[in-house]
């Protein structure tokens, strides 16, 4: 046997290849989006689509892929911890506007859960698929934690979170063009609670207050959902 196939058969080489492919495609997609900021060029959308095509083209299984790139998913843990910084830096905003933010978070979460459940039932989606839809409005690390807790499938939820992000960044602009929303606080909350990180990025382009509010409510609503889901699962 020659050295080359032997090397490619090594699990370590596979892992390295998939990791490098993921990081390179992501970095490339980010650059392209910075140059041409169209919604259908969002790295959130382009990277998984290209990687998926690569996987199917090479007849590789998801198992092969995630075995090599699982370490990237593990970094969602430290990313969750990093949210402590924006919370701390926006403490003045929290102190001054906590009742308003809290109302927005409760209304937003309730609407997300109720409409996801109701609409899913309406079109005949049930079981783990319906449960996986419930936490899709909140930021990924929190959404995956909630999904596992309530009996959903975290990998399905990750897909739904992505679709929500892309849809939300587009829908947010359409809604703001028709709905008379005067306060920057409400515009920020719309993006942060409706479309997590992707929404926050869009809100930051609209204005500084919008971006700060969106980033803050995104984190707080994620934390709130994790706490409520944990509590609900223990008590019910």
């Amino acid at each position, binding site marked *: 046997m020659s050295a080359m196939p032997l090397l490619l058969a090594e699990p370590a080489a596979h892992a390295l290849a998939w990791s490098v492919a*993921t990081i390179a495609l*992501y970095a490339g997609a980010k650059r392209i989006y910075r140059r041409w900021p169209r919604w259908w060029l969002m790295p959130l959308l382009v*990277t*998984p689509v290209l990687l*998926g095509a690569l996987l199917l083209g090479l007849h590789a299984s*998801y198992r092969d*892929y*995630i075995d090599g790139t699982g370490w*990237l*998913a*593990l970094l*969602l*843990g*430290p*990313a*969750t*911890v*990093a949210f*402590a*910084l924006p*919370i*701390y830096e926006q403490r003045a905003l929290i102190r*001054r*506007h906590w*009742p*308003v933010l809290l109302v*927005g978070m409760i*209304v937003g979460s309730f*609407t*997300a859960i109720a*409409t*996801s459940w109701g609409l899913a039932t309406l*079109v005949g*989606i049930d079981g783990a698929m319906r449960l996986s*839809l419930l936490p*899709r*409005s909140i930021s990924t*690390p929190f959404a*995956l934690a909630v999904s596992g807790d309530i009996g959903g499938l975290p*990998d399905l939820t*990750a*897909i739904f*979170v992505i*679709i*929500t992000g892309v*849809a*939300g960044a587009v*829908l947010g602009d359409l*809604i703001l063009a028709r709905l008379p929303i*005067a*306060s*920057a*606080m*409400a515009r920020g909350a*719309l993006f942060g*609670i*409706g*479309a997590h990180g992707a929404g926050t990025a869009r809100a930051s382009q609209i204005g500084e207050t919008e971006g700060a509010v969106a980033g803050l409510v995104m984190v707080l609503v994620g*934390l709130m959902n*994790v706490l409520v889901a944990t509590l609900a699962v223990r008590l019910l």
Partner: protein
Amino acid sequence: MRLSRSLSALLGKSRLLQAALVVGFWLAGETLVRVLGIPLPGGVIGLALMLVLLATHRLETGSVRRGAEWLLADMLLFFIPVALAVVDHRELLGFTGLKILFVILASTAAVMIATALAVDRCFRWRAAHVRDAIASR
């Protein structure tokens, strides 16, 4: 446990070391969750730990800012691998996928409209009734 001066100076320079410190908080959170049997993700406990240290000024924002912002800016990269499970869920590529898309679009629009209206009403009510709530619009 105020960080020593030399360590702070070192942390101030390196984004990688700062990110490693954040990873340290996460590991501490995971350990606490295991040992004490806390029913929350380790990341959430790590977040609480870091927030307490920041609020009590035992940890300066300068020692973690660049590392934390780096992790947050590229968070997208960390969950793309999980989302590729879509290749194992071929049912999503058919009619079920369209139904899911409808649910997500309609629900996201509903969440955005409800949230924006609630916050806007509440904000205006407070601005009119509570003196210290006057802020930038």
